[in-house]
């Protein structure tokens, strides 16, 4: 087992290297002049009267791919991801500002997905083919087919346009003043956490009010997938002999379901966690656009619309790293949880 872990950890840098080369190779589709933006650290640091050709030469943009890749990687490892014209700040700083916002959204979303998924999935499986089950089945089919942006817009129409309960954006004007102007300190960049440390329950509530709709909007599809997964896994487990044994012992049905069957049924669900993280990052792009929530997703969209390559490159790199590391953690976690897993 230890050998397996070490092997996986040793392969990790290799995977990241290939991934970064793949992402960087996208830039090679562009002309050296367009590529310049990826290398110039700060627009202000370049005086306007240097000719482009000289800059291309200075940054070595006419040299072969591997030389440029090496130079770029060196910069990246020093934390320089280039200058983002669409965010009007260095990419690294933009990521530092927007990423926590998305993490916040993802955390809230995963609570909805996992808690809701396990709860509804259990309900449906226990009452198989009865009313709750039929309800869940039809509901999840709609949930899977509902585009996030359509659902998000409907939520906005009802809860913002009509009822005026939940506004879009990330914070209200007054709360933004508190966060950015007063002696409020940002520890994590996540408003829910920072506001509690700063003892500003009013900011906490305001941040939560802005998070509710986006979190619901992008949980709906994943929640449906999760419910179906839990339901079918539990249905299968409930027919196993050891569950019958537990019933025969005279245990209460609730104990049999929750303690005996569901525990085992939930094991394979953990493997879903990786794809859930990936889907949430993708969903964030849509949902943050719909709700005008300034996080990584909105950052990527703005960059894509403005053909802002440094931002796209930096964000892709970050997301690639997150996914690779998440998958590694899940594999290792799975090994700990499920002793029957056979290692390669």
């Amino acid at each position, binding site marked *: 087992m230890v050998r397996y872990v070490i092997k996986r950890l040793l392969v990790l840098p290799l995977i990241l290297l290939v991934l970064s080369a793949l992402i960087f190779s996208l830039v090679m589709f562009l002309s050296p002049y367009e590529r310049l933006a990826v290398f110039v650290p700060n627009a202000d640091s370049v005086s306007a009267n240097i000719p482009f050709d000289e800059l291309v030469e200075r940054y070595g943009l006419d040299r072969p791919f591997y030389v440029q890749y090496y130079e770029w990687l060196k910069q990246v490892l020093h934390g320089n991801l280039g200058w983002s014209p669409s965010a009007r700040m260095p990419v690294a700083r933009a990521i530092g500002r927007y990423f926590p916002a998305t993490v916040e959204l993802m955390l809230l979303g995963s609570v909805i997905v996992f808690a809701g998924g396990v709860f509804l999935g259990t309900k449906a499986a226990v009452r198989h083919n009865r009313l709750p089950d039929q309800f869940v089945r039809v509901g999840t089919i709609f949930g899977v*087919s509902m*585009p996030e942006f359509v659902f998000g817009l409907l939520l906005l*129409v009802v809860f913002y*346009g009509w009822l005026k309960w939940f506004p879009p954006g990330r914070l209200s004007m007054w709360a933004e003043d508190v966060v950015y102007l007063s002696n409020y300190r940002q520890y994590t960049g996540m408003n829910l956490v920072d506001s509690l440390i700063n003892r500003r329950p009013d900011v906490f509530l305001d941040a939560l009010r802005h998070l509710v709709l986006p979190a619901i909007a992008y949980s709906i599809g994943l929640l449906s997938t999760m419910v179906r997964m839990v339901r079918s896994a539990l*249905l299968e487990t409930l027919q196993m002999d050891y569950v019958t044994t537990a019933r025969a012992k005279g245990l209460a049905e609730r104990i049999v379901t929750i303690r005996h069957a569901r525990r085992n049924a939930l094991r394979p669900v953990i493997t879903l966690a990786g794809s859930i993280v990936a889907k949430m990052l*993708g969903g964030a792009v849509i949902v943050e656009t719909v709700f005008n929530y300034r996080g990584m997703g909105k950052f990527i969209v703005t960059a*894509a619309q403005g053909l802002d*390559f440094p931002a796209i490159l930096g964000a*892709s790199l970050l*997301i690639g790293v997150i996914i690779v590391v998440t998958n590694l953690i899940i594999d290792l976690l799975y090994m700990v949880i499920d002793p029957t897993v056979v290692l390669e």
Partner: protein
Amino acid sequence: MDTLRRLVLNPLGCAGLVLVAFWAVVALLAPVIAPPHAGHRDPYIIERVGFSSLPKPPSTEAVLGTTGGGYDIFYGIVWGSRTAFGVGLIVVGATALIGVLLGGLGAFAGGWIDSVVMRITDLFMSFPFLIAVIVMTVVLGKGIDKVILALVIFGWRQYARVMRSEVLSVKEREFVRAAESIGCGRFRIFFRHILPNAIFPVFVLATLDIGAIVLIAASLSFIGVGAEPGYADWGQMISFSRDWILGAVGDPFRYWYTYVYPSIAILTFVLGWTLLGDVLRDILDPRLKRSKK
């Protein structure tokens, strides 16, 4: 034939079939249902009824109203169905083909070829699909053809996975051994014996995938990196309506037609394929047969 019969007899499957058939008819008859005016150059560019920046409610001129900029909603929805079918069928057809060949041949060959194919698949898997496609469209440029290309580049990976696991199990079965023993060529064994027995999960996946792909394509248009402005595409029509979701003071639902109709179109289209794929999976998966009543 038996599959089709059971599909129709299942209420959910029947509903899915009806929805898909409905949109297929709309797409086929688009020039009849919503004929472009004479002199309208490209029928896929939504017709405009005036150029008013305010949406106009349904009238005799535009049956379902117009969006801001005068785009006819009815025309957009009818011709948008062709876009949806086009994107869905082309992308799923191409990705399934690539995935089946890569995953299937990799598993059939085994050894280092299989490892290489799977590592490449893993690499493509290590990226959220939507974000990967957005990045590709940035590099490739705007337009529905670029969107299709981007979707194909990243879409094949799941087919490769599914096909590989199927081929791995099928190639150990007796009839494959029998074919080998009577001297069939490797080419013939793969295409005549293994492929037909391993392809069903791909059909199910493909059916479900058409809905998913259309959703992704619509999302791209929605965030503004998909179809060109004015192209008949449901995602884009919903993005047109974004400015109007708040309605007017005292009348929050005044512009309901700008988002309700395109939303219904896209939802029913995807729902149809999801239902179809779902029921198809139940029918084709023999393991589930006994648990059905």
